[in-house]
């Protein structure tokens, strides 16, 4: 490694959580003026390794050198003092405070705060790297990408020379991601060391100078990005050759199942969330819904499921056998779900809607079926059997059926939720963020489940965040932009750039055709 100066050297780092070894004698070098991509499946120990650098965890064994000196990092504060800053996947910002207030939070200094001086320094940092931040803007008024910018400025304000970003693009539109990459490159040119943790191989190829790969807690190898390719990286990550394709069978005998016409929805505050949205969902096809978060995806699904009052328009459900149309608006959510419309919504905190964290698997299955019991007492046997079946078929990793759902890991919680919804043999399956935060293998299990439903002739409406997946999985993609339909395009042949433009601008991306 000629001419490069190591900012951080990690040697023989080992960390275990109980019986699980998250990192086993890992070696990693991070150089100044270089962007390092840290690759690996979920659970391969990337985040754990970086958390040890940023002071969240403490290594069991091994040594860390910063600028050639051996250091001990016990807390995030120690890490800051060494110039190491990490931007976590979930932003750590206080909503009611301004950007500048969030940035100086917890910093030592004179008792009296001079917000003007802080704002000036924030502007100075932003100017240097080309950020767009208004120091006096409140965080709750910000978009996701603005929040991320604040997080980055926060780290730079603390004088960080080594930046770690954990899946920074997971929540960004392609255009926002490009902007972030430009900023990261200009920071690299400024001599800073940058590590990004990601699953997305094309980002690795586009942005990074060097890749390091972890597999099940072991360091597999590193190489200059220019000398490798996606196939090789994936094989190193998984440890065996894999194909990275999601199946997409042609829809069989598509029949209109759900006709949405001029649907208009306002939220509790009277803000227009959906404005005259019209589309038709067919049986045996997956209709993807894309959009920047908060563009009305949630309201759309809730309106169809009867959980949100529609202000105007109509939602017609066409019966699978007779083809008789029936109006869903004004119907009780229970009647709608009895008709075969199932909703599985995975909110940001994964539990919130659909599952009760403190109840066990059987009880959560009962949430759907408790009305069915005869007489005064509930029937627990059926739900118990169903829970056992879901655990077996979907390979849910749980100590027992009696374990509270809250204790399961994210992927398993989602399998339980999706499994329960599918078990009711729906004719329309609404799913939102089904693979939120899941690793590659679990995600593929869920895609398989959804594809199986499609083959059964279910009309699937799939709201997703990851455009790459939407483009590979869905037969058609409905793009929402600020509550209006920006376009409805076939999934086969759609490009990410075009969908991205449509997400940010009504009818955007048309010039690409």
């Amino acid at each position, binding site marked *: 490694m000629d001419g490069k100066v190591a900012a951080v050297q990690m040697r023989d780092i080992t960390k275990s959580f109980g019986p699980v070894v998250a990192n086993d004698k890992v070696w990693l070098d991070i150089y100044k003026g270089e962007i390092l991509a840290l690759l690996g499946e979920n659970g391969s120990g990337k985040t754990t390794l970086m958390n040890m650098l940023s002071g969240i965890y403490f290594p069991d064994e091994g040594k860390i050198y910063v600028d050639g000196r051996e250091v001990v990092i016990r*807390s*995030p*504060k120690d890490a*800051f003092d060494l110039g190491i800053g990490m931007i*976590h996947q979930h932003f*750590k*910002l*206080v*909503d*009611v*405070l301004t950007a500048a*207030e969030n940035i*100086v*939070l*917890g*910093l030592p*200094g*004179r*008792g*009296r*705060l001079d917000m003007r001086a802080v704002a000036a320094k924030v502007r100075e940092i932003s100017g240097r790297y080309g950020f767009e931040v208004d120091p006096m803007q*409140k965080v*709750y008024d910000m978009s996701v990408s603005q929040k991320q910018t604040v997080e980055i400025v926060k780290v730079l304000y603390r004088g960080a020379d080594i930046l770690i970003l954990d899946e920074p693009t997971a929540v960004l539109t392609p255009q926002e991601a490009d902007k972030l990459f430009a900023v990261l490159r200009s920071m690299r040119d400024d001599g800073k060391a940058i590590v990004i943790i990601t699953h997305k191989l094309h980002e690795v190829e586009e942005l990074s100078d060097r890749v390091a790969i972890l597999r099940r807690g072991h360091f597999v190898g590193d190489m200059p990005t220019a000398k490798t390719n996606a196939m090789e990286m994936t094989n190193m990550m998984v440890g065996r050759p894999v194909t990275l394709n999601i199946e997409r069978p042609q829809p069989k005998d598509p029949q209109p199942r759900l006709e949405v016409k001029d649907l208009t929805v306002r939220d509790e*505050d009277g803000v227009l969330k959906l404005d005259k949205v019209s589309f038709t969902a067919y049986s045996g096809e997956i209709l993807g819904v894309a959009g920047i978060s908060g563009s009305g995806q949630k309201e759309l699904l809730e309106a169809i499921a009867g959980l949100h009052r529609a202000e105007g328009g109509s939602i017609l459900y066409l019966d699978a056998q007779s083809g008789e149309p029936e109006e869903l608006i004004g119907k009780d959510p229970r009647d709608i779900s009895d008709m075969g419309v199932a909703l599985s919504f995975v909110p940001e905190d994964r539990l919130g809607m659909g599952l009760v964290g403190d109840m066990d698997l059987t009880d959560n299955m009962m949430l759907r079926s408790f009305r069915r019991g005869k007489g005064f007492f509930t029937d627990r046997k059926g739900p118990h059997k169903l829970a056992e079946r879901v655990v077996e078929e979907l390979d849910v990793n749980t100590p027992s059926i009696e374990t509270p759902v*809250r204790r399961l890991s994210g992927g398993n919680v989602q399998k339980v939720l999706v499994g329960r919804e599918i078990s009711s043999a729906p004719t329309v399956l609404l799913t939102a963020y089904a693979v939120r935060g899941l690793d590659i293998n679990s995600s593929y299990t869920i895609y398989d489940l959804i594809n199986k439903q499609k083959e059964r002739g279910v009309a699937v409406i799939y709201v997703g965040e990851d455009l790459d997946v939407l483009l590979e999985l869905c037969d058609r993609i409905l793009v929402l932009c600020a509550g209006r339909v920006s376009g409805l395009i076939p999934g086969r042949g759609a490009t990410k750039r075009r969908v991205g433009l449509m997400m940010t601008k009504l009818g955007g991306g048309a010039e690409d055709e």
Partner: protein
Amino acid sequence: MFDFVSFIPRAVAQGVPLMLGSTGETLTQKSGNLNLGLPGVMYVGAICGVIGSFMYETNTAAESMNGFLAVSIPLICCLAGSLLMGLLYCFLTVTLRANQNVTGLAMTTFGVGFGNFFGGSLIKLTDSEVPSIALSATSGYFKASLPFAGDLGWFGRIFLSYGMLAYVAVAIALSCAFFLRRTRAGLNLRAVGEDPATADAAGIDVTRYKYKATCIGCMIAGLGGLYYVMDYASGVWSNDAFGDRGWLAIALVIFTMWRPGVGIFASILFGGLYILYLFIPTGMDLAVKELYKMLPYLVTIAVLIIVSLRKSRENEPPRHLGLAYFREER
């Protein structure tokens, strides 16, 4: 003609205990602790002050009483008593993570009982005819206003006729407002109440901030109890006389939308509404008087409705209010 010159001083005297109580509670709530034990804390503060001054007054001859001691002994007793209540509350809710509502309600019950028990005991000790203790000498020191205030006509009566604790209350409220808005520690405290996980990640010691804010808040509130006995009630303690002022102070916190500066005016307004019925000629019709007594509560309800109609993130309670923080929780 409505008699403002005599109305305002009485409204202020009514308002000061509420002001101290609500300032203390605001500080506490900013750390995310919803201390419903406030009425109990104010009771304990009052009775501790009474015990201190009772000891001093009964053991010292009237002519040899020292003004400084007569004020500082009850003051220190009051602060110590309310500090202990604050520590108890924090130990239960922050360290042991007990439910804040249950803890608070239990502490109110405890504090009121504590006050009445010791109040009753002191009354027994004095063998007096009436069920109360009069600490008029101590009260004289607490109530002392500037000597020339009486010569300044209406100005003196409205602005200068109060005992020193009233001015202390205003000073505390103003400094709390400054602390929360303009200082680093105040910013950190607000972050703790809004989002302790974020504060923790930024290197703020959440537990220490919660303890400090709650204990100092309790001490401020305790002073409200002391003011009530020593100044407003002229040193006369009788059981249950403090009434529901503690709850009103908590209502004031919501009324002022967690702003101690606004609390100064709001508490005087409440004090005024509390006694308005005395100043409005209602004749012999007692029912009308009772209607006027409802005013403070009606205004609270009206304000709550207006505030919730005007949705603004700044006027909302601290987001993590009432919830315990545990770092490992997912």
